[in-house]
């Protein structure tokens, strides 16, 4: 069967991870396509965040490989890992802005760390990135003065500062009102089109998933049980998947 494989920038092969004897990832396999938005759905506490932390080397697998551009990052030392991480931007669930710095300094942080740009140029990039996420005149504010949606925008601007090839989103719409959530969804799509970066989103927000995803993968019991285009996922016959996307309490997925 000579099927042409699409290019995958991230590939997880048979990844296992346990915490205190509890299996969270149990032989997870997934290829993430370059230049597309892949959304991983699954239950809260089902290992989605653990999966995401593996792709950027915050966690190392007990067993298995995590390939980023063909390199197994679980075997790299600190310095090599840092080089790989410069290709990444990550938006955390709570935005994770440094609360001791202003918004502008937050966005400037990766630039100050990894480039030799002059203060003036950094300022200009910061302004541009903030504009890109729809913010203006907030650079001097402290993160604590911002609303949840604005924090996420700043977090995204910071993630975009170094023009990463891969952007990770940890539940970008959780805890936001529906209108703000939709705005963030659009921002993800726009950002992807604008930068052509590979986006990996983990979410349990079904509505938003089908709005933004090129590919959807379902994580269940530590494995990816189904991967496909949104329409294929919708019409999947897998019981657990159907239960999840319809949001039913009854079904194969046990409520913890």
């Amino acid at each position: 069967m000579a099927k042409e494989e699409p290019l995958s920038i991230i590939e997880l092969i048979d990844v296992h991870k346990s915490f205190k004897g509890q299996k969270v990832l149990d032989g997870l396999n997934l290829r993430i396509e370059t230049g597309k938005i892949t959304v991983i759905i699954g239950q809260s506490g089902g290992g989605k965040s653990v999966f995401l932390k593996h792709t950027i080397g915050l966690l190392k697998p007990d067993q298995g490989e995590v390939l980023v551009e063909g390199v197994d990052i679980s075997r790299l030392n600190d310095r090599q890992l840092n080089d790989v991480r410069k290709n990444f931007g990550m938006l955390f669930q709570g935005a994770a802005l440094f609360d001791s710095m202003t918004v502008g300094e937050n966005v400037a942080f990766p630039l100050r760390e990894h480039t030799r740009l002059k203060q003036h140029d950094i300022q200009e990039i910061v302004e541009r990135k903030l504009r890109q996420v729809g913010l203006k005149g907030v650079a001097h504010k402290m993160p604590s003065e911002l609303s949840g949606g604005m924090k996420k925008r700043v977090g995204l601007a910071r993630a975009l500062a170094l023009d990463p090839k891969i952007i990770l989103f940890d539940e970008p719409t959780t805890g936001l009102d529906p209108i703000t959530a939709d705005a963030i969804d659009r921002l993800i799509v726009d950002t992807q089109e604008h930068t052509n970066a590979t986006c990996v989103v983990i979410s349990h927000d079904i509505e938003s998933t089908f709005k933004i995803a090129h590919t959807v993968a379902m994580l269940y019991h530590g494995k990816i049980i189904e991967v496909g285009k949104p329409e294929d996922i919708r019409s999947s016959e897998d019981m657990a998947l159907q239960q999840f996307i319809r949001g039913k309490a009854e079904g194969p997925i046990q409520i913890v």
Partner: protein
Amino acid sequence: MIIKTIEIIGLALIRFIEEFGRVMFLFLATIVWMFRLPFRLHAIFKQMEFVGVNSLLVVILTGTFTGAVLALQAYHGFRLFSAESLVGSTVALAMTRELGPVLTSLMVTGRAGSAMAAELGTMRVTEQIDALYTMAANPIKYLVVPRVIAGVLMLPVLTIIADFVGIIGGYIVGVGLLNINSGIYIDKMIEIVELDDIFNGLVKAACFGLILSLVGCYKGFYTTGGAQGVGRATTQAVVIASVSILISDYFLTAAMF
């Protein structure tokens, strides 16, 4: 019953060794990162200001009144055998060798050690530490190194100030209130106190500065469990650092004097 007791003791011992090992691991990582470029002078000065300059008032108050009360207590004892002239040297010796470094470190633990644990703990639970990792900025270099450097450098500075104001406080009480002859008071002090007494006290202070900043950072850095976890980390940092300071004080003193 006996087996159960041994089991509990064994478990506690294992936990202690585990934790001690992790602190040492953080310590080694701190030393490694301390010497990697670039040096973050700005962050170091900021922490030195926080640990040092901002602790000044507390340390001056503690030092002055400790010296004063020492003079008062020593006077009551020494009067019994007409040795009032030794009050000054007793105060000075006690301050420089013991109370200056120990009390300063305990006050700074309460002020700055707790704040380090709370700050880093909050950064941990709000994923700011993870964010540093993802931006290829090592949080040990960025957060722990400046705090530990500030602790080690500033504690001797604060201690020498505490020594000084303690001796002044003792003088005010001894000479001003209790009418000990000023000339004898100072003369005896100069005769008995040696430079080594002061110097060894400062070495102790540097060690205590390392302990309080390292424990504060360690507890904060490995915080788990949200707001409650941050509270727990802060309390533990203060208790563990204070007890470690007092225990290590005994051994340092035994080794040095």
